[in-house]
């Protein structure tokens, strides 16, 4: 063995020795290096290196699971008494004991939380349709427009009957969420059957889970060891108090949702009394007087958001658009953001097939909904839309969390330039030409609007502003995201910061084109 080889081997062996616990290394490290040097020529490098790695493993195992060195006889405790509940008679419970218990509890909670967060299971919304009765359809008539100025929650966009929009904000804006009153009919109901199935975690998830739990187990055993020094006592006390404070803070103070949460199906899943779904056929629009060409007039872009004061005030739902739009409405996805829908066939979104969906809410249900808050009403309708999707589109989905490009909406330097809404204002966000107007709009709603997503990212509201506001954005933004963001920053005092965030998505397991009725 030449000197260079020997030097390299010695360097490698020294590196492995550094993996030992500090106490062991301090006591025997130097001797081990000398013995390695003596034995290298006779034994060879590989056996000695393997022996060193085994030693590392043995020493850490010993350190993690060692019994207390100065074990004292302890009075017997009840078999079921926990570590933190059994207090020996005559001994005093110190702040250190409390802090240690708090820290260990926190570690336990984190471990369970982490394990539960691993996506090793999935919820399948498996909805079976049970037709109760069906003795009448709904007049889908496009020739029967709703009364002007209806006050339903999903406002009618003037001129939006024609979804052949050339909106610069994407196709999801087309003709969505319109509601109108309609004749009565009886219908059917759905029987939901939600089940949770085991799904083997990915290798990466399994490794993360194992590593996290190993660390926690090691930390737990480390902190459980007796006879801590004063430094460790102080550190543990501080950590324990911090853990307690964090537990109290997270448990007692409701934290705002990072972004819009997907509405999961619940049992029993409500359903519309009757629905009709038809492939939508665009009808030629008559030329408006004075038109110089035969193109349809530019419809007004309209976002039918409902504010805190507005609820479901009609028993009808009328929607024209791609199936993705219905999915977004049913599962509370960000409108117009199709990257939250995974595994959908081409006809579901984009420039795919458009359907005209009309539905009526059962009278009794509608009466019951009048006692709900607007948010609860919206959720109820969304769940009915889930029923409709399961019934007519044979939809089956499960939910996953994925890391997606996103923006966070924060307050820019200089503060927000928003005017608090007046009492009684109906929430509305509309865009006409180069002017976008918000009336009684909450920022949590604003971030879900396609107006704020020219490049299709989820927007997370981190402004901390809870109220409803009036605002106007003026200026041509074109298709360039950055120019629109500049307008928002200049005129609203809000800033969009690009980031990546875990976003819950819908994965479509099955969907088929509906048969018309």
């Amino acid at each position, binding site marked *: 063995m030449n000197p260079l080889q020997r030097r390299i081997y010695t360097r490698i062996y020294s590196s492995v020795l550094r993996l030992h616990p500090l106490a062991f290394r301090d006591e*025997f490290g130097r*001797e081990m290096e000398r013995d390695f040097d*003596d034995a290298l020529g006779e*034994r060879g490098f590989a056996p*000695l290196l393997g*022996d060193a790695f085994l*030693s590392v493993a043995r020493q850490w195992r010993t350190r993690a699971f060692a019994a207390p060195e100065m074990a004292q006889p302890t009075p017997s405790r009840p078999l079921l008494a926990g570590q933190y509940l059994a207090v020996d008679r005559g001994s005093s419970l110190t702040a250190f004991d409390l802090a240690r218990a708090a820290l260990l509890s926190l570690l336990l909670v984190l471990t369970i939380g982490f394990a539960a967060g691993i996506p090793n299971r999935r919820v399948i919304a498996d909805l079976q349709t049970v037709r109760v009765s069906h003795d009448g359809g709904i007049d889908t008539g496009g020739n029967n427009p709703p009364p002007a100025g209806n006050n339903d929650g999903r406002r009618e966009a003037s001129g939006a009957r024609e979804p052949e929009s050339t909106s610069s904000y994407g196709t999801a804006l087309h003709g969505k969420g319109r509601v109108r009153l309609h004749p009565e009919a009886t219908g059917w109901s759905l029987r939901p059957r939600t089940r949770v199935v085991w799904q083997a975690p990915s290798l990466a998830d399994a490794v993360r889970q194992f590593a996290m739990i190993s660390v926690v187990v090691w930390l737990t055993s480390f902190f459980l060891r007796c006879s801590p020094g004063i430094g460790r006592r102080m550190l543990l006390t501080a950590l324990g108090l911090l853990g307690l404070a964090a537990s109290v803070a997270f448990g007692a103070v409701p934290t705002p949702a990072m972004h819009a949460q997907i509405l999961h199906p619940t049992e029993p899943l409500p359903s519309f009394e009757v629905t009709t779904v038809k492939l939508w056929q665009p009808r030629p629009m008559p030329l408006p007087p004075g038109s110089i060409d035969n193109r349809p007039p530019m419809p007004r872009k309209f976002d039918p958001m409902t504010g805190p004061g507005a609820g479901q005030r009609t028993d009808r739902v009328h929607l024209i658009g791609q199936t993705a739009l219905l999915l977004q409405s049913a599962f509370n996805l960000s409108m117009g953001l199709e990257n939250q829908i995974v595994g959908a066939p081409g006809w579901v979104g984009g420039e795919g097939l458009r359907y005209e969906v009309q539905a009526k809410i059962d009278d009794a249900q509608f009466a019951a909904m009048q006692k709900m808050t607007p948010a609860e009403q919206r959720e109820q309708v969304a769940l009915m839309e889930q029923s409709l999707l399961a019934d007519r589109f044979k939809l089956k989905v499960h939910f996953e969390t994925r890391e997606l490009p996103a923006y966070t909406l924060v307050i820019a330097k200089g503060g927000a330039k928003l005017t608090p809404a007046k009492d009684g204002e109906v929430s509305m966000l509309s865009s006409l030409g180069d002017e976008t107007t918000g009336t009684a709009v909450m920022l949590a709603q604003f971030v879900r609007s396609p107006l704020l997503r020219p490049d299709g990212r989820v927007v997370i509201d981190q402004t901390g502003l809870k109220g409803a506001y009036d605002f106007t954005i003026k200026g041509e933004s074109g298709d360039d995201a950055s120019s629109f963001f500049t307008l928002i920053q200049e005129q609203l005092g809000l800033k969009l910061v690009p980031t990546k965030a875990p976003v819950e998505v819908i994965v479509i397991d099955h969907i088929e084109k509906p048969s018309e009725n």
Partner: protein
Amino acid sequence: MNTDANELLPLSPATLHVLLALTAGPLHGYGIMLEVARQSDGAYKIGPGTLYDNIKKLLKLGLVEEAPEDTTEDEPRRKYRLTQPGGSVLAAETERLTGVLRKARRGLRLLEERES
């Protein structure tokens, strides 16, 4: 001491060989490694990692102790020697192994008789 010694039995092969090596007198680490190999006719060899895992354990149990440094050496090395409790444990293990050997021999003899 016998009671305590018996509580530590059976010894692992490495521990037994380290204790056995130290019956030759105070030895430093590499000396113990060589002695272990010599006593087993080269059939059993331990590396520094295994050696010091055992030394640490034996020091903690008081079965070996550090011998005074030899000031005559240029680079004095830490040497270890067997303590009286260490000797007792080794004796108890030897006794146990003797019993095992005796039973093994008897069992083999009976097996041969049945086969013949």
